[in-house]
């Protein structure tokens, strides 16, 4: 059974800060129960015998799809930056990372 601490840790790994509202809902178990129910469903997988079964990693039959090493046209920088929340001098603006 997946516990609350694990759910908190997974949210942290996925960089999702659960809001105060969700922590309250959490306290009355809504998100917690729904996640537990889904994990209980996923747990049914353990009952199927998969001895010597190779994982199906790719549905397609293509292997190593390469192309010629040529420089192709890319997208216009200004158009790309027009979607940026903040940008300056042709760069994305982000909080300071390195002290």
């Amino acid at each position, binding site marked *: 059974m997946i516990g609350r601490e694990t759910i908190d840790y997974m949210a942290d790994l996925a*960089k*999702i800060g659960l809001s105060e509202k969700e922590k309250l809902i959490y306290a009355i178990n809504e998100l917690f129960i729904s996640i537990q129910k889904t994990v209980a469903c996923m747990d049914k*997988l353990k009952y199927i015998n998969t001895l010597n079964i190779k*994982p199906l990693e790719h549905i397609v039959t293509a292997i190593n799809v390469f192309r010629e090493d040529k420089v192709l046209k890319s997208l216009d920088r200004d158009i790309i930056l027009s*979607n940026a929340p903040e940008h300056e001098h042709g760069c994305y603006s982000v909080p300071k990372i390195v002290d």
Partner: protein
Amino acid sequence: MKLHELTISQLNNLLRKKETNAVEITKDVLDRIAKTESVLDCYISIVEEKAIERAKNIQNKMERGQLQSHLAGIPMAVKDNICTEGILTTCASKMLSNYVAPYNATVIQNLYDNGAILLGKLNMDEFAMGSSTENSYFKKTRNPWDINRVPGGSSGGSAAAVAAGTAIYALGSDTGGSLRQPASFCGVVGLKPTYGSVSRFGLIGCASSFDQIGPITRDVTDCALVLNALVGKDNKDSTTANIKHIDYAEFLVNNVKGLKIGIPTQFMGDTLNEEVQKAVLEAIEVLKRLGAECEEISLPSMEYVLPTYCTLAFAEASSNLGRYDGIKYGYRAKDYKDLEDLYKRTRDEGFGSEVKRRIILGTYALSAGQYEKYYKKALQVRRIIYDEFNEAFQEYDMILGPTSPDTAFKFGTKIDDPMEMYKNDILTMPANITGLPAITVPCGRDSNNLPIGLQMISKQFGESVLIRAAYTFEQNTEFHKNRPII
């Protein structure tokens, strides 16, 4: 009949005879949108001026003989997770509510090259996560057959628009049934192609080994015509298959004599709505009378479809949605202490609760200590399901059953219980798990006048079999002619 009530092939016929033109058709559909949108809420964005301008341009080209395609001059709309250059592409999420796509998805460019006219972007469940379109950040789309009920999801806007006449055809996407289930709920035709048939370049990813774009249309003829423009190898999507070009319209043949059809007992179980079961059994009798051989088969791996799908699709989605970090595009939180806090607040405020739930679950399935138990195990079970379905196709041409266990449900009845919502897609998920093609066609209505869908699944790249069987069923019934009254 009004122009917006006609099919692609009917409109194409009128265009060729010069009894109408692209501008007239486009204006008629826009007029229909203006009259019904306040009730149905199918669209997130409507590009009225662009559509009329394009219609004039397309009409000129048609008059000069520069466009021969059946799709030329026909107005359509696409699900809002497909990139359209210069137009908002939001995935019905706050996270992308201001995102203007800088390029066209390959499918969009293909349709444009065929003279299609884009009317706008259609509502959906946020990031294609949902089965009712109730998870949209912007609005709830209503089912044209009963406005107190959902249109299905996640391509609810697409299916509702085609049913209501606010788009002649639409594109949806299908990850676990997101195109077929709403098509079934809205009484229209929907096809999920074989994985790798249609380019995903420009489709905002949900679960990359499950997603496919497909047509939602009024009848099977239209489905074949749109499919022709979508299918093909694309150098921008390395998962597309190098298949020989087929004209799917050649398979619009009224003949299923000798077609061997398997009906899994697991598709017709006790959880099925009685009226859905009755309609599907009657559909089977129709096909038998037309010469198809129908037999019961067993697919025991169906028991593991839901846990396999939940594990793999959510894991893939958690990885795909890791890119939404408030840095390069999309929503960014206003107040944050540092970079880590920026990420967490942005993703908390930008995503809805179902998206967050799936990301957390997917992260869990991939996390150290759980990966072998869930993700790797699910990949093994995926192979078991894949092999079992493909073995069935050694003997049968097609597998058949209902598209959904039930008809359209009322708003709010399943949104608070995610597991109940996921179970809506139990019959559509296998086609995504296995990558097989599947089509839904209307096969009746229940006592509440709600459409019932019949699903046909074929072997890999077997769309031609689906087109033939679905067309035959359609030509020998009247269900595709039904239209909701709005």
